[in-house]
């Protein structure tokens, strides 16, 4: 019975992936990409990797999907999305994709299984009960620190696309919402629930399933709903609190790493006695930065021309 379910799931994942890349219009590809992400999340959940499943559903399908939809909307406003995609197979891309799949398949079978360190043994020293959080924020903190900096760099890249005259305009395009309409009511009703859920995900991440990235994405979605329903106003780049929110995560992370080095350890090695509070502080700061940065990535650079049109 569960074999049938797994086989059906595999077929759905492959089918959605194929429908995403196999020609057709941009909009169709985006919709299938989101569907693919959701199937993939169910797949991760079936494998018992609930942290990855949450991340895939929230970031892979949800946020990336919204990002792609926003890009598609922008292309359409510029009348650039109307051009039909080139007919036939994109041979270089197909070759590159197939080559990558073959290389990964070869690596899977040919490379020896690495001797994984026993996380369960080291877990008590990490300060948290969730092994995924222990790896992300303690044992392999480097990766997470660099990821948070990559997000910041991506946002700066998006902001660089702003025209000089628009720099002090509110961020993003103007969203339309009928005052007193359905969207506005939705934008007032949903954020409190989403806020609770997002904060819970971060808090639970220390010992159960969840974490800064999953919770941050939920909070970013809350902000986006409120923005798109015109319940809150889009901020400006010059808004000081906004700048603080964007850098506080990487900054606190770096500071904690440097302090650890200063107190006799090495960079980013947390002393076991202090690990739990330090991780919670880092996660809280990271969540703020992740939530704000992700939401700002979706609404895009300040765009005064897009607002007045």
């Amino acid at each position, binding site marked *: 019975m569960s074999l049938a379910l797994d086989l059906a799931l595999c077929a759905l994942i492959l089918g959605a992936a194929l429908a995403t890349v196999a020609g057709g219009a941009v909009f169709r590809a985006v919709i299938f990409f989101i569907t693919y992400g959701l199937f993939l999340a169910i797949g991760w959940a079936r494998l018992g990797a609930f942290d990855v499943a949450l991340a895939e559903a929230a970031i892979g399908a949800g946020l990336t999907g919204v990002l792609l939809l926003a890009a598609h909307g922008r292309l359409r406003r510029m009348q650039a999305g109307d051009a039909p995609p080139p007919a036939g197979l994109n041979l270089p891309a197909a070759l590159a994709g197939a080559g990558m799949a073959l290389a990964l398949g070869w690596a899977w079978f040919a490379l020896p299984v690495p001797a994984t360190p026993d996380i369960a043994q080291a877990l008590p020293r990490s300060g948290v009960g969730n092994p995924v959080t222990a790896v992300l924020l303690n044992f392999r903190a480097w990766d997470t620190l660099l990821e948070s900096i990559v997000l910041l760099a991506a946002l700066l890249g998006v902001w660089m696309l702003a025209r000089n005259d628009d720099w002090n305009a509110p961020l993003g395009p103007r969203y339309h919402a009928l005052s007193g309409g*359905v*969207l506005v009511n*939705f934008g007032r*009703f*949903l954020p409190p*629930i989403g806020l609770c859920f997002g904060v819970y995900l971060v808090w639970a991440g220390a010992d159960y399933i969840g974490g800064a990235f999953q919770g941050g994405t939920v909070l970013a979605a809350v902000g986006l709903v409120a923005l798109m329903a015109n319940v809150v106003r889009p901020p400006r780049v010059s808004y000081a609190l906004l700048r603080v929110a964007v850098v506080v995560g990487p900054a606190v992370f770096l500071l904690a790493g440097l302090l650890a080095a200063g107190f006799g350890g090495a960079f980013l090695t947390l002393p076991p006695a202090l690990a739990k509070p330090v991780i919670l502080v880092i996660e809280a700061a990271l969540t703020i930065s992740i939530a704000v940065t992700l939401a700002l990535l979706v609404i895009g650079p300040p765009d005064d021309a897009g607002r007045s049109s």
Partner: protein
Amino acid sequence: MMADVATYVLTALGLVFFVAGTVGLLRFPDTFSRLHALTKADNLGLGFIALGVAFQADTWAQLAMLALIWALALLAAGTVAQLVARAALAQVQEGE
């Protein structure tokens, strides 16, 4: 035992509504009737599935979560249906 039977019957009923909604989505002629098929049938279907799964719940907290999931899905589906319908209406009026 009785709980299992209830789960089977209710989730099967939910699936019937999902199938009906999907058939309506594929067969109905315009956006508005397709939305009608999609939201009405799917919301009922999800309700029956949630109700069916509720018979397997061990704690009240799980029941509350199932109810919350259904309520949020209802809210989102209703809102999105309104927005899509409004966008489609604007498009129809533009075409005239």
